[in-house]
């Protein structure tokens, strides 16, 4: 028996369109969890990161926070939040856990981007009479955008992989097949679902890689080419 062939056969089997959880629905739920978690995390972490990068204040806290957050086991966090928020708020609990996981890389990307801007350029912008807000909005944010997108990229990858755990607390997303597969000892189902997650991750990574290149400001890209 060939496990990979079976897994691929599982993915493309007509049964995937039917049943209690059709594959397409699982993919969309998976992506929806990812998108919502990354968006909410970005709403919090991007402005915070910009302020930290611009003022240079709170940097130590941000670094410590990101470092600590990387050590938090995501599975434990999901289960803990389900217990804390109660079984009736499983969606909220799972999403909160994913948001918390997505914040550190986005925060790091936002402040690192602003910090990486040549101090002489910032100095010049201030010296010609830009307000602190204009320095941030017109100079630091556009020049720091590639690093911010890099932060969003690693957050998205981390979350898209971790959303698999949502299948453990509810019958959502591609993780559900894996959890169910373990119980049924159906290895082609486990591997099939895992492969779909891998494809999602690769496609998202590729999209972000393109975006990262697209946001490099033109005048800056001109130097890199030579």
């Amino acid at each position: 028996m060939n496990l990979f062939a079976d897994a691929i056969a599982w993915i493309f089997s007509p049964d995937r369109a039917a049943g209690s959880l059709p594959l397409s629905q699982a993919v969309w739920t998976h992506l929806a969890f990812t998108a919502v978690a990354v968006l909410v995390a970005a709403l919090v972490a991007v402005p915070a990161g910009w302020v930290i990068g611009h003022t240079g204040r709170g940097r130590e806290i941000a670094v410590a926070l990101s470092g600590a957050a990387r050590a938090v086991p995501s599975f434990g966090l999901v289960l803990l939040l389900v217990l804390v928020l109660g079984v009736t708020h499983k969606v909220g609990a799972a999403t909160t856990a994913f948001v918390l996981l997505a914040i550190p890389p986005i925060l790091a990307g936002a402040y690192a981007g602003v910090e990486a801007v040549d101090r002489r350029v910032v100095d010049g912008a201030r010296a010609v009479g830009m307000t602190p807000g204009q320095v941030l909005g017109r100079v630091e944010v556009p020049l720091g955008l590639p690093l911010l997108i890099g932060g969003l990229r690693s957050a998205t990858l981390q979350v898209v992989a971790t959303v698999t755990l949502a299948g453990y607390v509810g019958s959502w997303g591609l993780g559900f097949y894996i959890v169910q597969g373990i119980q049924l000892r159906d290895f082609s189902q486990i591997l099939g679902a895992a492969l779909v997650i891998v494809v999602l991750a690769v496609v998202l990574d590729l999209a972000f890689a393109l975006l990262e290149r697209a946001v490099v400001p033109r005048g800056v890209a001109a130097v890199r080419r030579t």
Partner: protein
Amino acid sequence: MIEFRSVTKTYPDGTVAVADFDLVVPPHRTTVLVGSSGSGKTTLLRMINRMVEPTSGSIEIDGTPVGERDPVKLRRSIGYVLQNGGLLPHQKVIDNVTTVLRLEGTPKTRARDRAHEVLDVVGLDRALAERYPSQLSGGQQQRVGVARALAADPNILLMDEPFGAVDPIVRAELQTETIRLQQELNKTVVFVTHDIDEAFLLGDQVVILSAGAQVAQVGSPSEIVENPASDFVASFIGVERGRRALRPKSTARGTVLVDSAGRTQGVLVEGSQ
């Protein structure tokens, strides 16, 4: 007129950058602050447009202390040229030059027309307006920096070692251009450099600074060379050596001047001026 009144700047770590500094910068003249690194010359310059706040003392522009003015408005009213231009790398030359005008709300077309004029003034081809700073040479970037500073037609121009990062040939060219510009525009220029030759070339008034922005001597280049106030000044400007230490040598065709290395630097023309 810019006036420094017992200005002191002490940094939080205890470094005294400027101690009890007094100076009058006359209008429509070029004043050059010259000193080695650590002499506080850049700090002095940056206190004029409140990029640095003095610890005590005051700086007045035409009788108004700068401390009473809004820093953002103050900076927009003063041209500032930084070393390496300090241009925004993600904006085209034209947008860099119009920065101050656009910040002040000048309509786009009028700002662009003005930018093209200023590019002419600093001797840059208008075709470069649509390029990015990284696509220009060091000397061209520096001219864009000057154009940006001049765009809003400020009375005061601050120049912080603007030609420090370009090669000697381009530097000489930019220095000549600066003299020409000053003759045309008559701004009050405060220029910072560590190069005494540059100071003597450009300055109407030269201020020689030692550590902690102590004034070693203030005067015109001629006054300083003819009568150095101290051994420090004499050695700083190099009157005993190099190109400035000239002695006469008689030849068959008249007297020539030779430097300390014995190279003939010029011919002594008697009875002129």
